């Protein structure tokens, strides 16, 4: 493993080690680039992961102080936990469930196809399906996505069996166990899935792809990665010309450090990434770095979501096996006749007892809540995940009234549901309920959105600098050697779980950075 000097200004500094940062770091190292990764979290492992929902949340979760506001229910139910993401080496690839979907043509051209929508800040991606296809292909190969590259699908669990039969009863023909970055057979030195049922607590089989035990060790093996864990970036510095020069961070001992850099790539997830740019304001950049458009932190998207849980006369044991085990895609197209733009996916979801109790009716009490839990063993579940609208007012800002453990203003996440989101969620609830009732559900429970695991759009890609923060390579419009390398880049959210796209963009970005470094243009 490499150890570069703090004053070595030839390195690329990557902030974050998740799907974006971890992949980017490895791809750069493979190209012969020296990389320093600053990861705010500590180093867990397959051995240290725990099959306990509460303990794993404390072990892996991003628990630094945050605030939230707006009309979304999260601001009421989980005011200090707007997002459920990770602070650990590997980032939220420790927590993600493995669903690996490509964006599709209508999603990349949302403004052109949906048209302007009141109260939404619609924009087309500056990328086409054709430009992305090869990188999706490489991402799927790297991650071992089932049902691609001749990798067989995963077997469905009981929760999927209920989901499949329910879908079939209402006429959905697409239900299957989906494209998952979970090994259905041993692959790339990693084991096959044993259906543990704790995908979101860190996969103790290592069957689910995570940068923790794929990209990061591969990068270390090149001798070009200096991974610094428990190192929290607080500021990106620049010179008089405006180019970024390095990163200030608190190290594992709480000492402030400065790492010089040729290039800085920010991949801290779509809340911390804009927070860091905003915290880096200076006399030259009074609104924060890369923010001449004013769009840093704006257009925060988290997917329209909600869950439907149903109980039956017979057992389900939804916690057995993969947490997300299947998908229905019929509702994922753009069919405005339904009363909303864009589409959504239906995905089976199973929780253990603690998360079920916590999420089925947050803030609830009394028999209306407990009667659901009483039927836990006979419960099945599905999750709605759909495109939400980019809005100028849905944004991450600095809350200067509240400070984190470093004395730095925390992020506030403001979100108001758009009418489109509300209509889509209502449609999803209706369809989910109809599915389960069609096979004899006793009780159906509509659960509100969980704290966001999909966070997107806060440094979005745009063709023109006026409308976004980065170009189609993730390079900031304002500062040539500053890149955004996570879901913050998303121009619009699409309906699919974002990880595969984040990985594909990171592969693509690494290739481009490597070429531009060779050309000495950055």
């Amino acid at each position: 493993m490499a150890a570069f000097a703090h004053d070595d200004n030839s390195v690329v500094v990557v902030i974050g080690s998740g799907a974006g940062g971890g992949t980017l770091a490895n791809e750069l190292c493979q190209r012969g680039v020296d990389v320093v990764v600053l990861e705010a979290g500590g180093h867990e492992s397959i051995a240290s992961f725990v099959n306990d929902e509460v303990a794993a949340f404390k072990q892996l979760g991003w628990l630094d102080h945050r605030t939230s506001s707006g009309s979304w229910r999260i601001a009421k139910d989980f005011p200090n936990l707007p997002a459920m993401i990770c602070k650990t080496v590997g980032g939220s690839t420790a927590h993600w469930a493995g669903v690996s979907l490509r964006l599709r043509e209508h999603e990349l051209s949302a403004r052109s196809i949906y048209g302007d929508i009141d109260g939404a800040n619609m924009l087309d991606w500056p990328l086409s399906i054709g430009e992305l296809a090869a990188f999706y292909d490489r991402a799927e190969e790297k991650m071992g996505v089932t049902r691609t590259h001749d990798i067989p699908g995963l077997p469905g669990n009981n929760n999927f069996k209920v989901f499949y039969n329910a879908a079939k009863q209402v006429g959905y023909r697409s239900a299957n166990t989906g494209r998952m970055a979970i090994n259905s057979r041993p692959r790339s030195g990693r084991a096959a899935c044993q259906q543990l049922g704790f995908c979101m607590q860190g996969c103790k089989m290592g069957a689910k792809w995570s940068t923790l035990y794929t990209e990061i060790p591969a990068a270390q093996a090149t001798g070009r990665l200096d991974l610094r864990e428990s190192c929290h970036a607080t500021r990106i510095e620049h010179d008089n010309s405006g180019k970024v020069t390095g990163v200030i961070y608190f190290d594992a001992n709480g000492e402030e450090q400065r790492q010089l850099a040729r290039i800085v790539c920010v991949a801290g997830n779509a809340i911390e990434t804009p927070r860091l740019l905003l915290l880096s304001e200076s006399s030259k950049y009074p609104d924060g770095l890369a923010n001449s458009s004013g769009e840093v932190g704006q257009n925060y998207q988290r997917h329209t979501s909600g869950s439907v849980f149903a109980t039956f006369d017979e057992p389900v044991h939804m916690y057995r096996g993969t947490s997300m085990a299947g998908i229905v895609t019929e509702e994922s197209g753009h069919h405005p006749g339904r009363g909303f733009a864009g589409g959504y996916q239906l995905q089976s979801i199973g929780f253990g007892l603690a998360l079920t109790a916590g999420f089925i009716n947050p803030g609830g009490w009394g028999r209306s809540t407990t009667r659901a839990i009483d039927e836990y063993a006979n419960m099945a579940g599905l999750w709605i995940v759909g495109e939400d609208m980019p809005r100028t007012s849905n944004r991450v800002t600095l809350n200067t009234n509240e400070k984190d453990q470093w004395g730095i203003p925390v992020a506030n996440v403001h979100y108001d549901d758009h009418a489109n989101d509300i209509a889509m969620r209502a449609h999803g609830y209706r369809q989910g309920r109809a599915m389960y009732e069609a096979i004899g559900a006793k009780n159906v429970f509509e659960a509100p959105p969980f704290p966001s695991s999909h966070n997107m759009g806060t440094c979005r890609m745009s063709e023109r600098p006026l409308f976004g923060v980065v170009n189609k390579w993730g390079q900031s419009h304002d500062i040539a050697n500053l890149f955004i390398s996570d879901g913050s880049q998303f121009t619009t959210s699409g309906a699919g779980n974002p990880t595969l796209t984040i990985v594909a963009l990171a592969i693509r970005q690494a290739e481009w950075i490597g070429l531009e470094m060779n050309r000495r243009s950055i």
Partner: protein
Amino acid sequence: MATRRDFLRASGTLSGVLWLSSSAISSLAPSRSWALELGVFNDLQSRTLLQLTRHIFPHDTLDDAVYAFVVKDLDTASAGDQAVAKLLSDGVTELHSGGDWLTLSTAQQFASVEKIAGGAFFEKIRSTAVVSLYNNELAFAHFGYEGSSFEKGGYLNRGFNDITWLPDPPPEASPSPELN
């Protein structure tokens, strides 16, 4: 409910005897009697908080031994934070301001719980209970959740797809497990 409960009134301890109906839990317990050491709460406080939690998350057949975990965690929180200790102590006192709250009928108790719902005292108990009541081995046994599975080899050979009350999906939707 009160007739099924058998509290021993030891100061600094919350204790009881497992209900005869708690068979799922009994199989995990070394004996029928149980006791939790408390550092802060007195007997009245601990019994009041336990009964309050029963109103907030009512599961008629769930043993007091499981609800006692919530009291234990509230006690631990009180020991570590004077503001929490005061919040809970004042809340209990207020509940008893009109006489012994524990002797009221279930309906009368519930009416008073509805009045305090949403307040800081209630929310402290509710937010603690939603984790403490459900994330323990006794609750797992009661509600039919099997907890940690890694050390048992997961569910691949232990029933991940064992339900028979619905037809199996076709292999193109759900392939058979690969043989390792």
